[in-house]
């Protein structure tokens, strides 16, 4: 799908993946998450080959699918991920993405934007060093995008890293862009 791709990310860094539809942004994110094995080449963490178990404990991945159960309420969905996956304050995460009012609503009644917020609220559970976000701004309104960009800034201020794919302007300031079509890096 792509070859000769080389990039590095520093603490507090942000990398935006750009490219046409089908360029491989999602595949690259899944590869970085460890869901896909690379056909060739290596992924490294602190200049050492990636240990899959340790890697899983330091990343959060928000893909296209929201990983919500329609029959459970917003709070139940988030509480499950908190209990299953390392803990974290569910109420704070709900409040962080402006979902406190919808907390007791079954996820089947949410709008696309609210579903997205609920998926993103997982980021605010127990902190992880690396966020991998696949078009996180999709279906978010202006206020939601603002919330997301504040969450990313707070994460980066604590030394966290973020890789996200985006069409158009990504919701953050000061980032590197990796254009998969052109295989080029740029900083903005």
């Amino acid at each position, binding site marked *: 799908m792509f070859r000769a791709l080389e990039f590095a990310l520093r603490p507090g860094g942000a990398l935006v993946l750009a490219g046409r539809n089908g360029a491989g942004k999602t595949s690259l994110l899944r590869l970085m*998450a*460890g*869901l*896909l*094995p690379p056909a060739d080449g290596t992924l490294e963490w602190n200049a050492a080959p990636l240990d899959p*178990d340790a890697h*899983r*404990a330091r*990343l959060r*991945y928000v*893909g*296209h*699918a*929201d*990983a*919500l*159960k329609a*029959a*459970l309420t917003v709070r*139940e969905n988030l509480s*499950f*991920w908190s*209990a*299953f*996956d*390392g803990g974290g304050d569910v109420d704070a995460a709900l409040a962080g993405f402006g979902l406190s009012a919808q907390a007791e609503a079954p996820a089947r009644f949410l709008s696309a934007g609210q579903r997205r917020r609920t998926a993103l609220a*997982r980021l605010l559970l127990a902190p992880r060093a690396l966020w991998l976000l696949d078009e996180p701004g999709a279906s978010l309104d202006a206020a939601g995008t603002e919330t997301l960009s504040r969450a990313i800034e707070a994460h980066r201020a604590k030394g966290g890293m973020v890789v996200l794919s985006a069409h158009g302007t990504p919701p953050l300031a000061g980032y590197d862009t990796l254009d998969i079509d052109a295989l080029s890096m740029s900083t903005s």
Partner: protein
Amino acid sequence: MSAFAALLRRDLRLTLRNGGDALMVVAFFIVAGALFPFGVGAEPAVLARIAPGLVWVMALLSVLLSLDRLFQSDYEDGSLDQILLSPQPLTLAVAAKIAAHWLVTAVPLMIAAPVLALLLSLDPALLPPLLLGMLLGTPTLAILGAIGAALSLGARRGGVLLSLLVLPLYIPVLVFGAGAVAAAAAGEPFQAPLMALGAFLLAALALGPWAAAASLRQAAQ
């Protein structure tokens, strides 16, 4: 362990909220089993003779019927990716899903089995070996089924593929499950077939979750 409990609780709660699914499996078990007297005739002696095998075959098919949704919804809504990416051991998550599946399908089947057995004129004295056999055999069915469900995940017409993968593996459980009842009917001790079922269960417990977990990782690629 808290991850195991969290996933088990979530799956049980989801089944309770979508209550129809579990009831449908039990209804299939009873209704399909009750067709046999119409097919083979209502002769009690004939029915009583074939009842143990029929109840077991219907139990296998009912478990099979419910298997395709074991991982499918998690696969479709992205939850499976999150489960795979969690630092929790995947085998533990798979074990939790199998346990939840067994509780919501096999336990209702065991409750319904005496009804079907009596409809088929099985001697009530043979219910203990039937139910003990189901208690030991159905977890094996759920574990083997989970391997098949994980292998056929994402495949076109996965349900048919799943049946072809899993049904041959169910034969030993069927043989010894029905064999225990047949032994009891002949007045012989039925401990040996039950012990064989127990042995299958231990082997399935030891190997099944690992095999299913490996297949799930493959399916997510």
